[in-house]
């Protein structure tokens, strides 16, 4: 039995170390399902979450990229963040508020943030105040500088999100020549003998 136990514990250790627990999402979305079996790439992913209340959230996986992107966007809008705030920001999976409000959000403790999360207004993306594209561009260049890898754009939409919002996100990105999107979906079984 000892060798088996040894192996079992080895595997336990392996899985424990390799598992990345998903950080608590700012917003919960129920994605629609599709038969696609392509997996989302492990890293270099920018996630744009669209929820059913027309809000758009921005998120990028790597903490370093997040910090650099924050600094770049902050510089553009004349907002300052302390090193501690930036560190705190790197722990947040996604953000859905104008850059001006992020500072005070970062100063809150975890419990207070949970209260605010439900009322995050979403990243502004209209033509006059398009912060979403700034975030995406900043995250792309930061990721390229740090990891030398291109980024994937994933759109994680709620099933009940309305199409105009999603199309607006796509249009905004297309204006910057980003034409490839990954729509995050749940898995669904392929219908049997549907194609012939």
């Amino acid at each position, binding site marked *: *039995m000892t060798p*088996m*136990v040894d192996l*079992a*514990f080895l*595997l*336990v250790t392996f*899985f*424990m170390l*390799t*598992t*990345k*627990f*998903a950080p608590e999402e700012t917003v919960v979305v129920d*994605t*629609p*399902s*599709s*038969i*696609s*079996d*392509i*997996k*989302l790439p*492990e890293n270099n992913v920018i996630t744009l979450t*669209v929820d059913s209340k027309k809000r758009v959230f921005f998120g990028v996986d790597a903490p370093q990229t997040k910090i650099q992107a924050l600094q770049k966007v902050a510089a553009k809008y004349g907002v300052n963040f302390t090193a501690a705030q930036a560190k705190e920001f790197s722990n947040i999976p996604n953000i859905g508020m104008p850059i001006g409000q992020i500072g005070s959000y970062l100063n809150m403790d975890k419990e207070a943030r949970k209260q605010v999360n439900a009322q995050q207004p979403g990243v502004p993306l209209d033509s006059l105040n398009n912060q979403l594209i700034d975030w995406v561009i900043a995250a792309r260049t930061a990721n390229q500088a740090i990891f030398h890898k291109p980024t994937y754009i*994933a759109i*994680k*939409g*709620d*099933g*009940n*999100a*309305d*199409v*105009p919002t*999603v*199309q607006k996100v*796509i249009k905004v990105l*297309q*204006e910057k*020549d980003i*034409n*490839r*999107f*990954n*729509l*995050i*979906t*749940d*898995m*669904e079984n*392929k*219908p049997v003998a*549907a*194609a012939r």
Partner: protein
Amino acid sequence: MSEIQAKDTSGGKGGKKRAKKMSTKIDMTPMVDLAFLLLTFFMLTTTFAKPNVMQLTMPVKKTDDVEDTKIKASEAMTIILGKDNKVYYYFGLNTPLDKTVPKPELLVTNFSASGIRQVLLTRLRQQPKTIILIKPTEDSKYRNMVDILDEMNITNQKKYALVKVPKDDLDLIKASAL
């Protein structure tokens, strides 16, 4: 630990005499149970953590010197995603201003396996070169959009595009009152 050891030795029949001689083996079963429980837990969480994605490639931004691709009426098929998970579709082109083109007949179906999928499969058999224009209206949900793109994959459509819904098509829906 020592308690477990003491209990462990009483398992045998004639254990009384040998009770003083402590066994060096401990019962590992609960530990192994726990180990396997953890193993299963971590294995399952790792595999399910990564979401699936559906790839969507939009056309490159239009420059002025490139003209729109003209679609032949015989190859065109339009799918309009409407309110309440309704799917409207028609074959050919809808150009009310051009009197030479007959007004297309608008039909309605749903997202079930016997709905739009059968329509697409029949169409593909009749016209293998079909170009499908998907037009989600403002009332449709994101789920509908993903569903219809999924149907494109299921039915192996070669050419399809996600386009804006023009006013003519909205008028057509209104006029047909489906």
